[in-house]
């Protein structure tokens, strides 16, 4: 007879690797679209990021004297570097991806104790590290040149871009958020800076400069809805984050439309959709309860909008997420579910009281 087993003697058909696999599946359409849009350099960058995460995590776990296989096969390291790769400029040099991935899985995750122990979202922490340390490489945006189009770099050329940091003339561009911010500093209002530069539809389908994943809002949104349908994530945090951005954007846009961009502009630019459905839904670094997730999501959105509007950086998703990661233990401490037969303070209900 084998060891004594405790009830339950049945289990839902779910595991960590299935959860991670489903998230990757949800990311796949947007990623493939990004590959098509930015061509071989983007594929290179994505690939080196993943390889770096796998090798780096394997080595660290091996040095810790732990079993390597279960850690690698849970898929969390791969997912982290995938999310990071989606947030990088597609033509960034290889070492940006490698450094970021290693920082994410080794420093941000394994040093904290491995899966489930990290305080900050590893992908966002790595992105912030890269942005602060290498501002030039991290803001070198490129005009999309879809595979097969005239401007698209060939395979050989793409290897030079990724591995030899070769620059392509005439393809550099600013992201929408960066462009607007720069124009602001020159005293140019939205009515002029957005003219000819911004059409919501373009943001929606990704036809503008940006990071790999940020550009394909529609596909990311579909991926997010798929995750909600598969019950991998719940709607609470994403919807709260979108509202956290849209509500202040709408109010201030109504007050001064030349100075404050509207909700559509905010929702469809930068990393909002990626952040709302794939980053802030990271279970490890977000609150446990539904109410906590609503607070968390809304605050992420609000902080993003504040940083974009009044901060020094054009984009604020990564900073907002990290700030709220730090606040998660406090939210979890104060926001707890009500226990059956007790009130919110934990005191037993008195007889005959309807809840």
């Amino acid at each position, binding site marked *: 007879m084998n060891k004594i*087993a405790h009830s339950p003697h049945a289990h839902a058909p779910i*595991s960590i690797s299935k*959860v991670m696999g489903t998230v990757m599946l949800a990311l796949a359409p947007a990623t493939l679209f990004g590959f098509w849009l930015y061509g071989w350099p983007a594929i290179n960058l994505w690939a080196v990021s993943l390889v770096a995460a796998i090798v780096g995590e394997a080595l660290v776990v091996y040095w810790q004297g732990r079993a390597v296989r279960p850690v690698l096969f849970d898929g969390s390291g791969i997912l982290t570097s995938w999310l990071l790769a989606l947030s990088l400029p597609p033509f960034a040099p290889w070492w940006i991806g490698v450094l970021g991935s290693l920082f994410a899985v080794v420093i941000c995750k394994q040093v904290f104790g491995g899966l489930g122990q990290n305080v900050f979202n590893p992908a966002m922490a790595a992105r912030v590290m890269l942005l602060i340390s290498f501002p030039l490489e991290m803001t070198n945006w490129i005009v999309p040149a879809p595979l097969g189009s005239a401007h698209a770099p060939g395979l050989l050329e793409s290897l030079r871009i990724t591995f030899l940091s070769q620059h392509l003339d005439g393809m550099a561009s600013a992201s929408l958020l960066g462009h607007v911010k720069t124009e602001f500093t020159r005293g140019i209002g939205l009515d002029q800076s957005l003219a000819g530069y911004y059409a919501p539809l373009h943001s929606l389908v990704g036809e503008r400069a940006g990071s790999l994943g940020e550009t394909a809002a529609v596909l990311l949104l579909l991926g997010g809805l798929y995750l909600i349908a598969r019950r991998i994530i719940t709607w609470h945090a994403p919807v709260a984050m979108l509202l956290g951005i849209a509500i202040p954007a709408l109010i201030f846009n109504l007050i001064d439309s030349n100075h404050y961009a509207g909700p559509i502009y905010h929702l469809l630019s930068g990393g909002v959709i990626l952040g709302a459905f794939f980053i802030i839904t990271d279970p490890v670094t977000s609150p446990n309860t539904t109410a906590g997730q609503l607070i968390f999501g809304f605050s992420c959105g609000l902080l993003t909008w504040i940083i974009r509007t009044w901060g020094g950086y054009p984009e604020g998703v990564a900073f907002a997420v990290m700030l709220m990661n730090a606040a998660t233990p406090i939210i979890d401490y104060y926001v707890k579910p009500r226990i*059956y037969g007790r009130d919110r303070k934990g005191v037993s209900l008195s007889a005959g009281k309807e809840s």
Partner: protein
Amino acid sequence: MKLFKLRGGVHPESRKELAADRAIRVLPMPEYLYVPLLQHVGAPAQPIVNVGDKVLKGQLIGASQGVISAPVHAPTSGIIAAIGEYPAAHPSGLTAPTITIKADGEDRWLETAEVENPFSLTADEISTRVAAAGIVGLGGATFPSAVKLNLSRKNNVRTLIINGGECEPYITCDDRLMRERAAEIIEGVRLIRYAVGAEDVMVGIEENKPAALAAMSAAAKNTEVKVIAVPAMYPMGWDKQMIKALTGLEVPADGRTADIGVLVHNVATAYAVRDAVRFGRPLVSRLVTVSGGSIAEPGNLEVPIGTLVETLFDFCGGFRDKPARMVLGGPMMGIQLATAAVPIVKGSSGVLALTAGEIGKVDPSPCIRCSSCVRACPVGLLPLDMAAHIRAGDSAAAVALGLKDCIACGCCSFVCPSHIPLVHYFNFAKGELMEQERVKLKQESTKKLAEARSERIARIERERAEAAARRKAAREAKERAAKEAAAKAATETA
């Protein structure tokens, strides 16, 4: 009828189709029956027979002891073969005091007192008959039913809820009972209502049992009993969940259902109550579902209490292949059986022989704080945090998070993508707390005894000193008196 919203819960694969359409079959009387003296919550029964005694079916063999207890009866006629320890249904194969009966094959009933019209009895008489029949909560809680009846009468219970929520996967014995013996159940329900004087009577049945719902509705027609379909989810059969769904009321955490004017009984209990009150027949058999992927022919059997689990497996065609795990009860809350040579007791609703695929065992991985467990918990606890504290050796922190409110339903473990045995942590901590309380009680009583002892010693010494002082005083007084007398005599003689 409007139902009330419930918190948490899960939807495990029901697997009821294995046995749901198999009609009840009566198990042939086995040669030996092993009747444990403790088959209920409370004090064990006291044996009142001796080895070698001849007993009839339904004869009292173990008497109820104390306020919360229940008697046990001979499930068939025969001879008392042994009284002593026998392996019980326990994961570690522990033994329990058990009366062994060798059946004589006649299965002859004791003369019982039948009642033409049970509604002519007084409430007291009904409750006495239920107590004498050894009826306990057959949904699995095994709380003595008569104690509940009396408590409800004292508390003026207004609502009687009959629990037809058979939410454990595989288990179909209540379903079959409702399909095949609905009229008898309804009579039992009406007797309970009559005994406690409840105004409303509701039977809650999950909507995944349409045949049972139809049969019970038909039987309840033109009676005061309302049959209501409730959502099919786990743990719908948790009495407090059923109360919430049907009435919107919550039982206070520190209280009982009677505090909010509700009494809950299981359908099988109602059936047993009818047998006891109308025919004076004690609880000596029950329906048991035999199921699982390893069972050749799953089914629902009417089984004498004390039958060995292996006899049920054999009757159902034995194993298709070697089971990965044998379970007493349902897969969500049942206990693993180390051996099938343990007896069926009053609370056994099913015995399962499960394949490795059905169990879905995977080695645990780290918690990713996905909070699936928080969403699944019907009580509103934070299983992930409680388990983390217990793992760190801090049971007190887990208690602060509500460990004592945990009902061990298993929803959290069931949904955990990391396959962490959360309920195992909780039961471990609960056991540890009980042990701590026991040690504390022991220390307190030791302290009390030590104090009493030193007080006693002090008192004895004090008394001894006082006695010595008294003796001294007496001696001195005597000496003084003698001296005085001598002096007096001297003066007189002088």
